[in-house]
């Protein structure tokens, strides 16, 4: 189960036909493949044991970018940063604000690919207002576990023709197909942004105030509660036209928040990149990291419980409270083998799901990066994977929920 015993052989095809050949060859030998882009986020999800690593980073073609039609089609291996730079040149962006997270795993952020961003389905602070990665994937091309190349979706803004495989494959961690090409919806980037920082009045109160703000038609695209000097700070980001942002900022006064500090556009951008990449957590290099999805209304109580149980050393909330990140020291009391299930149990009690975002391979292998699923759902997910990859050779076990170390194949 330990992937690093032998360094896998790396195959790095330069065209889709070669990708298909690699998969077919593996299929015929019954050999597992580790599917990756440039491998900058291999620590995300469960470790994969495979003799061969299929790297899609060699597929680097930009097929088209039509700013007037808000659409871009690129190969999976194009670096995410290159895509973002290209879009920025036309005043556009990826609204779901994909975190790179490469640095968390010791990878080089500039090498992170767009394919990896979509395959891991990560979405940043803006997601709770504008949508997740899956909401911006118009089409995908890939090679399934039988080595067959296929296309799904399209390039139009609206498309309900057949099953929505684009969404299914987004966030599937390469367990159903090796993604080779992506067609994404992009949007005009907001003209400007501004962030207001307020001292925390206690998580429960902060979350309630944010909920009230988020129930009003304000151009809020960020609502986080992060560690700050001397405690926690509530951050509210507004985006839009300059007069619009000013108008909305005026309306935030009297929303129950104490007087705060204003971060102007450049500062605001920097701040949210730190939120997105979790820099604000100040995690030590051997801390374990958690990503917990939880109803905002249960976030404060969960945070209290985690702190009381001394399971976390630092934590932050995003998405108005519906997303929690926290650090668990390597030397957590009771050791990781006791602490990991305890944290998961507390998250589940709060109605949440705790994903082990970073941890040493043996811990992820033992406890699973993802929390347990209801048996019916886990079985359905396994069946769904198998119709794409009947032999279970693509990233086997990478998404397996806790308690099912490798999904039954």
């Amino acid at each position, binding site marked *: 189960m330990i992937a690093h015993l032998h360094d896998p052989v790396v195959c790095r095809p330069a065209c889709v036909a070669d990708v298909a050949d690699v998969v077919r060859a593996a299929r015929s030998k019954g050999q597992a493949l580790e599917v990756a882009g440039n491998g900058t986020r291999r620590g995300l999800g469960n470790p994969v044991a495979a003799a061969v690593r299929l790297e899609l980073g060699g597929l680097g073609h930009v097929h088209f970018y039509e700013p007037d039609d808000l659409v871009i089609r690129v190969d999976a291996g194009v670096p995410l940063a290159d895509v973002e730079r290209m879009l920025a040149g036309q005043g556009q962006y990826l609204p779901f604000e994909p975190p790179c997270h490469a640095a968390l795993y010791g990878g080089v952020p500039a090498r992170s690919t767009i394919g990896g961003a979509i395959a891991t389905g990560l979405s940043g602070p803006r997601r709770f207002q504008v949508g997740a990665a899956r909401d911006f994937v118009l089409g995908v091309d890939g090679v399934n576990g039988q080595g067959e190349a296929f296309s799904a979706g399209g390039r139009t803004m*609206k498309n309900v023709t057949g099953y929505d495989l684009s969404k299914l494959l987004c966030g599937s961690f390469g*367990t159903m197909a090796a993604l080779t090409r992506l067609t994404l919806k992009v949007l005009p980037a907001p003209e400007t942004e501004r962030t207001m920082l307020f001292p925390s009045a206690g998580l429960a109160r902060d979350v309630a105030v944010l909920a009230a703000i988020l129930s009003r038609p304000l151009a809020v695209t960020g609502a986080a509660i992060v560690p700050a000097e001397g405690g926690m700070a509530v951050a509210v980001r507004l985006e*839009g036209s300059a007069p619009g942002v000013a108008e*909305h900022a005026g309306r935030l006064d009297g929303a129950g928040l104490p007087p705060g500090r204003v971060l102007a556009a450049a500062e605001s951008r920097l701040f949210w990149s730190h939120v997105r990449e979790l820099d604000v957590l100040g995690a030590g290099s051997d801390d374990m990291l958690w990503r917990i999805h939880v109803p905002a209304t249960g976030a404060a109580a969960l945070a209290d419980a985690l702190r009381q149980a001394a399971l976390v050393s630092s934590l932050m909330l995003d998405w108005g409270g519906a997303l929690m990140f926290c650090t668990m020291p390597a030397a957590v009391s009771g050791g990781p083998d006791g602490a990991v299930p305890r944290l998961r149990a507390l998250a589940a009690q709060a109605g949440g799901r705790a994903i082990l975002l970073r941890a040493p391979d043996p811990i992820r292998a033992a406890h699973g990066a993802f929390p347990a699923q209801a048996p*019916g759902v886990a079985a359905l997910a396994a069946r769904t994977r198998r119709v794409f990859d009947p032999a279970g050779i693509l990233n086997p076990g990478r998404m397996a929920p806790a308690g099912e170390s490798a999904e039954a194949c």
Partner: protein
Amino acid sequence: MRMPDPDQGVIARRGALAARLRAIVGAQWVLDDEAERRPYRCDGITAYQATPLLVVLPASTAEIRAVLAVCREQGVKIVPRGSGTSLSGGALPLEDGVLLVTSRLCAIVAMDVENRVARVQCGVPNIRISEAARPFGLCYMPDPSSQMISTIGGNVAENSGGVHCLKYGMTSNHVVGLEAVLMSGEVIRLGGGFQGAADGELDLIGLLTGSEGLLAVVTEITVRLVPLPEAARVMSMSFASVEDACRCVGAIIGAGIIPAGLEFMDRKVLNAVASLLREEHDPRTAALLLCELDGTAAEIDALIERVRGLAEQAGAIDIRASRTEEERERIWRSRKLAFSAIGKMCKDYYCTDGTIPRNRLPDILDRMAELSRTYGLDYANCFHAGDGNLHPIIMYDAARPGDLDKAEAFGADVLRACVDMGGVLSGEHGVGVEKRDLMTHQFAPADLRQQQVLKCAFDPEELLNPGKVFPSPCRCAEFGRMHVRGGEMRFPDIPRF
């Protein structure tokens, strides 16, 4: 439209099956009398009709589960139906299949204002969610034109759109949790009561949304609620040529403006509406764009000025912007009345749903004009220009022999042209039976196969809504060994429909 041949053996067992199902849902909620089954013969498309074997109206997830279990045991097909408003024949019954009507599951289970979600049963009409959310300043954004009656379950099945989806997204972008019953009788719960509840799992919600009732029966849905926009104003812009109007659409989107709605109406539609309302309109107008902008008053004012500038550059001959809510409603009224106005002009019409890249609008409109001459049928255009979603309205007379066939062929050619221009067969109505046989035009065999094999994971016996979406069955039996039951192949030889 060729459907799978009805199984006479199943039809012969109608009475026994009705008795089994009555024991589950109560006597009055199983319709076996022919007179009472006939009104269920079609959904929102009357061109395709079939009398269902039985109509069953369960009232709970548990009843649906029991109904599915009986049908699976008996090898009986199921067609799920909400309010029967599909415009692609998605709820077309089968003569040897049970029509599973979900309209009695119509409770709003929970309004969770703090987490801004609503949990509702599948038979709740779309608009009821927004009505329930309004006192809290929230709403459910997707607004298909059938929203007064189309059920949220049907919206999920079809991934419905609407005028506002340009800015706010389709149904799929607003679903955070689902409860569904599989053909095995298993109840699965996906996601939950908050955004992100399903993150880190395979996106089965995304897969089920828009799966047209082929994979599971969705029984409960948790949707996102968003704050009601503070204000909205609509601009009405007239153009002397269709090309100018198309150019204006590109200019608005290209300028980075995403309106809440951007609708196109051609001269024929305008004439029809004018005559229905007994009003006059500028005879120079060849195309009209309606552009809705929302936000705060100041933001809207600024946007209106920008759009006005772009429209002028594109050659608009008349530009108006609503100043009051009453004016806004009046301007929208023409769009809302478009289809009934056309309906008054002709005996029957057929409306289809192709989508193209926005910058190909002029090309597809040329192609429609050409096809109209070829088929000798008139047509009109009224569509969601902002996202390139066309609804050509082809006029015909169903009583005239051959007319319906011609209209269908005309529509099919338009859809093929959409695909050839980089677009797709359906933007929001779904494939259903209507566009089923065109799927091979959009998808290569491997692409289609990749979709169809999902049936093997959800419904290997292919009892759920067969004959829809795909032009041939999946033949799960041929796919691997796992779906051979009792050592026997379920489908030794399945013909193409």
